[in-house]
């Protein structure tokens, strides 16, 4: 009986689940290290933390995250619907431009906007020259409201992207029927498009939520008392890293809770819609004032979320180019590309395997493993880096004998002084991004094709390459590009875990921004943005060619 089960298990999954398991274990080690903090006894500072920080900071985080999720989802859904279901002047241009904010790291955007709107910034200076007296209250961007708006402006594309690709491929028959049945446009949107795309919205919104939860750059600069700020106050202010890790662990526990809810939400609304053969939605042409309204609204968002900050950065880069530019930038650029490409390959490999195993083997265990894989995304990078460091140092210690035998020297740190550690950390951190993309990709095609293939005697691997991969190729690419974008922008992990002399564009931008030299930070920031635009273009171009 037991052997039979084992054989069946082997037949079905074999290498796939083994790889998935290895990935899960590797990815979980640092998180487990942090979660273990919950088991120990709270330190002497814990009482102070719970009394003065925990609740207030958690609530402020909740407000920030909730506000951003609502606003970003709203913008994402409306813009996706507008560009998919209607035709208006410059529509193609806008549908591409709405992806571009992804290229701008939110903390750079925050610094740019706060500086731009400050008393000495270009906006107020211009207004003063025009003789307009300005009330400073209107320009207080460094506040909760400001943070929500900035996060939403630069994170809404996550929702937009997922909803758009869903609506483009799968909504046509429903929407056309509703239109034929004489539903007015608003009712088509609210009664058909919106409920259909719940899954895509939740997927995009959860990425937005994680980005906000683990942010430290924006909240620190704006003086917001978020949960992450509490973690760092405990660590840097009280020098109590154990309590800081305990706080981070509580955050992780909370995130696991959110995972479960998200899963429940998605499960209730499951539409199996055939992926191929779906007819594209015919766009309705907008005319007259409505068309102009659409153009104005789209331009407004495009200006705020991309063109204005980029133009401002260009001006600053022009001012400081001579001071900042040197030949080291070539090295930073290649470093950035190097780690990004490695990470993309590793992350997408594990994301594909894990999500494929997960969908074939729908059990609570595999589901949990799948979700746990994404945990790295939820905690602040600096905290995760401590977990990663702990793991690598212990591996290095264990391998000390091997290093000595290889003639590398006694008591040497090899792995933890190499790029391996950084790439490993990135992969853990951004597995969630790749996994989310793959999960919804597989979700969309359902299991019937692969099951048919399996019935015809193809193994899991053969089925994957012959049947699944062609169907989810888009998801793999989309996931890969998302991961690339994230790594290019990533900061806290790189900062602590990189080897000697390893500078990326993000660390350079941070070096200036953290010292309030925002003008000097413009040049490296623009290079990050350029790389981001490049990958967004690639993504867009691939999408167009396919259709």
């Amino acid at each position, binding site marked *: 009986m037991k052997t039979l089960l084992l054989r069946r298990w082997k037949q079905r999954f074999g290498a796939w689940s083994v790889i998935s398991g290895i990935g899960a274990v590797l990815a979980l080690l640092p998180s487990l290290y942090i979660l273990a903090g919950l088991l120990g006894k709270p330190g002497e500072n814990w009482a102070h933390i719970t009394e003065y920080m925990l609740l207030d900071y958690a609530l402020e985080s909740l407000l920030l995250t909730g506000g951003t999720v609502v606003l970003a989802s709203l913008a994402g859904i409306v813009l996706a619907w507008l560009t998919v279901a209607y035709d208006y002047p410059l529509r193609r241009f806008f549908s591409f431009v709405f992806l571009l904010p992804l290229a701008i790291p939110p903390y750079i955007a925050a610094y740019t906007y706060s500086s731009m709107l400050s008393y000495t910034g270009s906006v107020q200076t211009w207004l003063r020259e025009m003789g307009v007296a300005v009330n400073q209250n209107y320009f207080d961007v460094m506040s909760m409201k400001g943070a929500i708006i900035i996060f939403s402006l630069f994170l809404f594309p996550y929702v937009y992207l997922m909803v758009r690709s869903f609506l483009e491929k799968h909504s046509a028959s429903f929407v056309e029927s509703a239109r034929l049945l004489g539903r007015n446009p608003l009712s088509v949107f609210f009664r058909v498009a919106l409920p259909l795309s719940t899954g895509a919205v939740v997927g995009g919104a959860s990425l937005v939520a994680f980005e906000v939860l683990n942010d430290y750059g924006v909240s620190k600069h704006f003086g917001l008392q978020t949960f992450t700020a509490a973690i760092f106050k405990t660590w840097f202010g009280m020098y109590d890293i154990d309590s800081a890790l305990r706080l981070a662990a509580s955050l992780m526990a909370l995130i696991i809770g959110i995972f479960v809810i998200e899963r429940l939400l998605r499960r209730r609304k499951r539409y199996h819609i055939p992926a191929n053969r779906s007819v594209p939605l015919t766009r309705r042409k907008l005319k007259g004032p409505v068309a102009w309204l659409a153009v104005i609204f789209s331009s407004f968002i495009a200006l705020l979320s991309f063109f204005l900050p980029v133009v401002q950065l260009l001006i600053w880069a022009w001012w400081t180019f001579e001071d900042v530019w040197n030949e080291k930038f070539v090295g930073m650029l290649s470093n950035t590309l190097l780690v990004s490409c490695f990470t993309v390959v590793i992350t997408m490999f594990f994301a594909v395997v894990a999500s494929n195993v997960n969908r074939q083997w729908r059990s609570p265990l595999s589901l949990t493993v799948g979700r746990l894989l994404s945990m790295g995304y939820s905690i602040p990078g600096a905290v995760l880096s401590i977990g990663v460091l*702990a793991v690598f140092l212990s591996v290095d210690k264990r391998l000390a004998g091997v290093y000595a035998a290889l003639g590398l020297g006694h008591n040497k740190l090899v792995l933890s*002084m190499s790029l391996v550690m950084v790439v490993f950390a990135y992969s853990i951190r951004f597995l969630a991004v790749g996994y989310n993309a793959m999960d919804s990709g597989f979700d969309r095609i359902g299991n019937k094709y692969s099951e048919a293939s399996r019935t015809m005697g193809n193994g899991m691997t053969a089925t994957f390459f012959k049947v699944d991969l062609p169907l989810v190729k888009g998801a793999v*690419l989309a996931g890969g590009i998302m991961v690339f974008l994230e790594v290019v922008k990533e900061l806290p992990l790189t900062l*602590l875990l990189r080897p000697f002399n390893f500078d990326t564009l993000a660390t350079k931008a941070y070096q200036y921004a*953290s010292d*309030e030299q925002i003008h000097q930070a413009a040049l490296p920031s623009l290079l990050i943005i350029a790389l981001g635009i490049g990958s967004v273009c690639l993504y867009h171009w691939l999408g167009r060619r396919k259709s």
Partner: protein
Amino acid sequence: MRNKIVAGVLTFLSAAVIVTGCGGTNGGTKGENNSGTNGASPSASAEATAKPEKSGVVNVFTARHYDIDFAMFDQFEKETGITVNEIKGTAEELVERMKREGESSEADLFITVDGGVLNYAKESGVLQPIESETLFSNVPEKFRDKDNNWVALASRARVIVYAKDRVKPEQLSTYEALAEPQWKGKVVARSSTNMYNQSLIASFIELNGEAKTEEWAKGIVANFARDPEGGDRDQAKALAAGIADVAIMNTYYVGQMLHSKDAEEVKVAENIGVFFPNQETTGTHLNISGIGLAAHAKNKENALKLAEYMTSKEGQEMLTNGSFEFPVNPAAELPQLLKEWGQFKTQDIQYAQLGVNNKAATELLNRSGWK
């Protein structure tokens, strides 16, 4: 479709080749220094990127991310042939990393801002006593750890700045006076997550005791013109914008703003006055940047050489002209702007106390509602 996949793979591979190619040349330039030595050691090539030669490097863990620091490292490389490798990060993170790496740590020097952090590094056991007569003659005793685990590199004052058009310097006296009701709605400062504020409070705890300091912090919070936000420069801008009349900020930011590429920032800096408080009483709060010798330094001699270089008269002049901090070496000449500010009385406390009191300061700030 297959073509597309092939094309994708090819694109990726060519990108990878370009990238690794660049990486290779980078490593090459770093390793060139010792290419003259005959390659007797087989492992030398493998380690070329990190350490060209045992005696030819110094590994720096630094939390100071100023361009001028890196320019100094370059200059040091040129003059001595010793390669400076750096890992950057937040001070507390770097200390944590060194602690966890233990004996295997590659760190030789630890450089950071803030006396409190320097003390934290010492307490964490990642530093060791320095023995260098040159360093001791460069840096006066008051700027050194009592066990010489670290020496200061530069100092900065945390002062009161005021809007010249609305406040006369005669109205200002002490930090303590800022908590008085006459300044209600007229004070701005940055958030309490910032270590400059934590150290400022830590120094007050040392001088005035915890109860008085807490009362003061509550008074300041009551006088805030707005919730703390932004960095030190943003406080100066708030004065120019008329949001507040007085602010607490570090001196070197005024210097940097005066030399900003942004004409508007220069204007702001010109319209604010720098006031060194507590001249009649406890003195102005001074904080330091410092260098510590790593407990398990493998290149101790080079580490000391670099520290000596950075605290030498020339090094200090280069540094302070770039960062507008005050030099710690009395032989160094001050930049023009700092000369204009003149001599001032500073707090008479051990910098280590900033670290000892930091936890109490953070808790106190939390209790007083300083965001």
